[in-house]
């Protein structure tokens, strides 16, 4: 079940980026091998983007267009998922992702029940499997799950009839964040294919970076990564078909259409992965001067929460090129699209 706790290093080696070979991930784990792939007949979970084809990603993005319009209405409520039950089960703290899923489910008319580990029987020592079985016996349709252990949602998907959506597992994946990033890029730049995207920061431990790498690759973007050498998966250097590894911030940002900054996880500093915050900011931070190296009108993105003044300067974070608030708003539309698609696919009666 701690399928990939040493995730970063292992997983990028294991996985070739060819979307059609997404099953490779699964087969190496031995856990989820019996699961059919995602969107094809029988696909019913969203665990990571390496399992999704370009067509499947585009289907989500097109639905998100329609969902975004629903969110702009005076009456933000539709009966599409009326009678469906969605449980959000979060073993880690989160504001935006959980609220975003909750709002998405409610706008579609589903009943959404939020369970956090600290207020559930998990705190009494219940095992993950027993927690899942208890929830499943309540006839749920979709389980949205965040867990500190990489691979946990794959384990759960093997033991449950409901559709499982990975809302972040350890350092492994955060597929809905990557989908909302793709949607945001597409809605601002018209397309993703051929765009130069720089991802800067803690690539090694970032599930946002990892899912974005698969998604951007599948959609045909040209990705460059940059970050402290201690936070860069070493094998990425040998895989230029996934991403180029830049040698400096200037090189990473140069002529970029999108600059995606990652949150620096301050707890990594104590593990010796990071220099001082001041040095980090100097070498790896995005400021107005560096942003000028990017294409005019380049998008500045950040999955949040931001450490302003460390990985991103406040003037850039709130500047004209920042689409960080759009990302949050788009997150609801994209999660509506994901919930709708998965619930429709697992729907038997209606």
């Amino acid at each position, binding site marked *: 079940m701690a399928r990939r706790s040493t995730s970063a290093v292992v997983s990028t080696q294991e996985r070739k980026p060819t979307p059609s070979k997404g099953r490779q991930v699964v087969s190496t784990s031995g856990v989820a091998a019996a699961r059919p792939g995602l969107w094809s007949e029988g696909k019913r979970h969203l665990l990571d983007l390496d399992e999704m084809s370009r067509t499947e990603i585009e289907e989500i993005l097109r639905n998100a267009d*329609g969902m975004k319009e*629903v969110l702009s209405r005076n009456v933000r409520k*539709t*009966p599409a998922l009326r009678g469906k039950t969605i449980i959000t089960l979060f073993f880690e703290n989160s504001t935006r992702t959980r609220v975003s899923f909750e709002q998405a489910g409610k706008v579609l008319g589903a009943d959404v029940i939020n369970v956090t580990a600290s207020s559930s029987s998990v705190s009494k020592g219940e095992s993950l499997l027993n927690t899942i079985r208890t929830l499943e016996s309540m006839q749920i349709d979709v389980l949205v799950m965040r867990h500190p252990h990489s691979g946990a949602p794959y384990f759960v998907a093997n033991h449950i009839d409901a559709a499982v959506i990975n809302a972040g597992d350890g350092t492994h994946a955060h597929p809905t964040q990557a989908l909302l990033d793709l949607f945001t890029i597409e809605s601002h730049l018209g397309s993703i294919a051929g765009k130069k995207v720089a991802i800067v920061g803690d690539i090694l431990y970032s599930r946002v970076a990892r899912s974005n790498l698969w998604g951007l690759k599948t959609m045909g973007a040209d990705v460059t990564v940059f970050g402290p050498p201690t936070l860069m998966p070493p094998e990425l250097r040998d895989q230029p078909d996934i991403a180029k590894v830049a040698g400096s911030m200037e090189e990473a940002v140069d002529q970029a259409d999108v600059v995606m900054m990652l949150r620096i996880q301050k707890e990594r500093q104590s593990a010796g992965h990071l220099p001082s915050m001041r040095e980090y900011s100097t070498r790896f931070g995005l400021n107005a001067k560096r942003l000028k190296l990017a294409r005019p009108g380049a998008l500045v993105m950040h999955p949040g929460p931001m450490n302003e003044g460390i990985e991103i300067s406040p003037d850039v974070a709130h500047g004209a090129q920042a689409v960080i608030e759009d990302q949050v708003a788009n997150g609801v539309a994209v999660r509506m699209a994901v919930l*709708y698609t998965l619930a429709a*696919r697992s729907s038997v009666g209606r």
Partner: protein
Amino acid sequence: MPEETEQREILDANEIRRALTRVAHQILERNHGVEGLSLVGIHSGGIPIARRLAAAIEAVEGTFIPVGALDPRLYRDDLRSAAAQPVQPTEIDFDVEGRPVVLVDDVLATGRTIRAAMDALIDFGRPSSIQLAVLLDRGHRELPIRADYVGKNVPTASDEQIKVLLQEEDGRDSVVLIRGVERKQANGSA
């Protein structure tokens, strides 16, 4: 499985034009003019027809008629088949509150799409009335719904499918009846 399919044109370009011109006049007559009137086309077949009706009404009255587009997919009662196509953004950028609205679709069959469209429309406000205009009524109703304006009534068998080709989408205007199609497919548009 159908053994073979047979196609027959039931409306040509001129007949479509005449039918829509007549419907435009009927809408004007029934509403005593265009005061507050708007048209809302149902995705996707109803949208070009709504635009043509609006153009025909404007030609007679010389007054602008707002036209909206509505995707009732999220209001349908068959989630699984509804989700086979992506949800399109609904565009109703005018006020429908207290005003007459004419819903427009290409083919009326079961009435389920119209039921969903009425629910969707009411989320945008409370129209003084909702009327329904369709190019074709093919029967097979499953709900107590009828059209106020019908271009042509086309009684069909359940193994027949109606295909509406329009200049805007298909490069020509024609309505074709296709025989030997399974009910499941024939039922697609409603």
